[in-house]
């Protein structure tokens, strides 16, 4: 009798549990299926002439992304476009993000965004204002790449159709990866931007993007900002000097002139550190220490690398070459832009906190007037699988 009672009870409990499960399986409060979302891969931000925020988004049409290389699918129909680009104006970024919904069909999914491109006019205003949304919103990917568009608008770049990849934003991101490997563009992620903007110890730099042709973009150089406002640009060589100084070069090709020809040296490892020397409680010199390991990549000329001495000579010239690049970047930022993008301020704040508190507000002016001491330590490791150039044998 008791046994039967228990059985009855268990059955009732089981049925209840089974009935409750479907409730749980519906997932979150307001779940969104993949087919009900517009997947955003690229975001562009600019200002209109009357100071409003102009938001451009590049949205993927998942059904149209195919691996068919030609412009036609199997049946010979013209392939529909893989992405579409929409713009909208708004007083704030968030308003524009929501405002876009008036022209597109589905809600936007922003976490998948790979690049964020700022327009020149926007950068001339205060960057902090527009960045707050990207910081606050819980859907943002903090690792997304930031770029600054020069001589073009974010919309133009995002609307560009490229042959390399069916999704332009992915293509742009890949070019950044490539250029980073050449040391001529700084990869800036959203989180780095937020960190530097807040600390005030290092001025911002953002990778530059330009139009190379109708179907190609070029990511090279950086935009220099001061207190969140654009003050100028660095060309690829200056950029590389800047990156050498802060130790962000992954690899690079440096050309060194020799007596009979040119040598291209492949930088394989670098390490850069900036510091400030203090005398009597006041900063006296800026120091930059760079360590480099390199390989000989190409000898375009009639010379020959015979002995260790040749390599030493080569190392010396390499040092000079790199010093020159760093000097170029430093002089431009000191004299023209007066913006401490190297992060000497970070060093001062860490090790001379009292002094930093005093000069926090006008550190950039002090930075501009300080002399600099650059030390480069270069080491050439290997010379490749041949010893001499083809015509170099005597």
């Amino acid at each position, binding site marked *: 009798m008791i046994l039967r009672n228990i059985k009855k009870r268990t059955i009732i409990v089981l049925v209840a549990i089974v009935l409750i499960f479907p409730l749980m399986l519906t997932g*979150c*409060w*307001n779940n969104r299926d993949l087919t009900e979302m517009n997947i955003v891969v690229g975001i562009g931000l600019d200002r209109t002439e009357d100071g409003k925020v102009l938001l451009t988004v590049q949205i993927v049409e998942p059904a149209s992304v195919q691996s068919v290389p030609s412009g036609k699918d199997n049946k010979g129909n013209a392939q529909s476009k893989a992405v579409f680009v929409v713009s909208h104006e708004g007083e704030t970024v968030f308003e524009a993000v929501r405002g876009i919904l008036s022209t597109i069909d589905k809600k936007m999914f922003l976490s998948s965004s790979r690049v964020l491109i700022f327009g020149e006019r926007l950068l001339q205003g205060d960057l902090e204002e527009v960045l707050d949304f990207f910081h606050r919103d*819980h859907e943002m990917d*903090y*690792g997304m790449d930031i770029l600054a568009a020069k001589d073009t608008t974010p919309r133009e770049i995002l609307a560009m159709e490229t042959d390399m990849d069916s999704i332009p934003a992915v293509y742009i991101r890949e070019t950044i990866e490539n250029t980073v490997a050449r040391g001529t563009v700084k990869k800036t992620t959203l*989180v780095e931007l*937020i*960190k530097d903007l*807040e*600390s005030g110890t290092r001025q911002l730099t953002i990778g530059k993007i330009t139009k190379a042709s109708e179907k190609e973009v070029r990511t090279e150089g950086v935009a220099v900002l001061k207190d969140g406002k654009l003050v100028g640009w660095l060309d690829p060589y200056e950029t590389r000097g800047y990156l050498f100084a802060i*130790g962000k070069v992954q690899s690079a090709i440096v050309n060194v002139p020799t007596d009979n020809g040119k040598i291209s040296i492949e930088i394989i490892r670098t390490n850069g550190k900036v510091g400030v020397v203090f005398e009597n409680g006041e900063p006296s010199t800026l120091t930059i220490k760079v360590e480099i390991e390199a390989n000989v990549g190409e000898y375009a000329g009639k010379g020959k690398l015979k002995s260790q001495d040749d390599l030493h000579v080569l190392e010396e010239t390499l040092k000079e070459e790199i010093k020159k690049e760093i000097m170029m970047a430093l002089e431009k930022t000191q004299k023209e832009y007066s913006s401490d993008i190297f992060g000497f301020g970070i060093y001062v*704040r*860490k*090790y001379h*906190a009292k002094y*930093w*508190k005093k000069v926090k507000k006008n550190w950039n002016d002090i930075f501009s007037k300080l002399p600099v001491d650059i030390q480069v330590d270069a080491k050439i490791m290997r010379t490749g699988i041949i010893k001499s150039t083809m015509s170099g044998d005597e």
Partner: protein
Amino acid sequence: MVKTQISKIQLFMLLLGFLFGSTVIMTPTVGAKNDGWLAILVGGAAGILLMGVYSAIALLNPSKTLVDILMERLGKVAGNILAVLYIWYFIHLASLVFRDFGEFICTVTFPETPMIVVIGLFAVVLLYAVNSGIEVLGRLSELLVPIIPIVIFIIGLSLISVHDFTAFLPILENGITPVLKAALSFLTFPFGETVAFLMVFPHLNKKEKLKKVVFLSAGIIILAGTVIFFRDISVLGSDLMARATFIPHLTSLLIPGLNVEPLVDINLLIGGGIKISVCIYAASKALCQIVGIDDYRTMTGAITTFCVVLSIWVHESTLDLFSWSEKVWPYYSIPFQIVIPLLLLLLSLRRSKSSNKKEKSLKG
């Protein structure tokens, strides 16, 4: 009635889970900015002492709960009043942890789900756990708490993108005052909150191990707190850290190519769950002891409901919750966590000394 007992490992895990609790997402030392690690060490040292006081009280009054001790040492009237205040304190604490949990989930994971739904569902599970008894809670924490350090380690992967490990410099940029304030915060949250364990300690099966268990768990929390602090400041930098709503969550977002954000939720579910369960258990048990009801389970339902309602009622917004926890909570906690326990310790010491003397004089 068979007396319920938990082993020393279960108590250890329970303490550990309780201490991790919402500390996992809310960093109490955030006011000290770069000197958070100093605040953690100072506050932690004081926290160990404080937990030593609690265990000393428990050892001097073997197999007596907080309510018994209050009644015995302070008399019936004062004891009853203080016991009622403690019940309120435990309920308030549980509701604050509920709110922390709700705020976190609603800010980062389910922004459009009403908070009451999140908290309510969580409360149902916890009510079930509390009703199963303190042994089950002990076994549960034995099973789940070891996950917390693993998750902390995984989030530590975010360090691979960091090159600069000196982000905690300069030391004492803003003087010693913010450090001491943050240390007080860290002392009252989480260490002082273990006063709720005075309702649990009597269940430990081997009393002689109590001190060891308490000190070990506090030591581990200090160690973990320091490690977490250095991890977060290296990854985020001091300015971003000061601005973030939930610091460890932000750190977990920064691991390149890996999304471990839900792991923070798991940590909070385990730690916060144990904390709330212990608080509800302590409140129900104390209430039933005062009124003279045998089974604490009769009141858990009502108390949990009240906690949930209170958690919604008590603060208007995240900002309110945070500023209140930072400004008012430490001072509000001092009488409950420090003054009354010290008083109890003194009274207990005197009593035991005089009884010792009596024994001696009898022998002599």
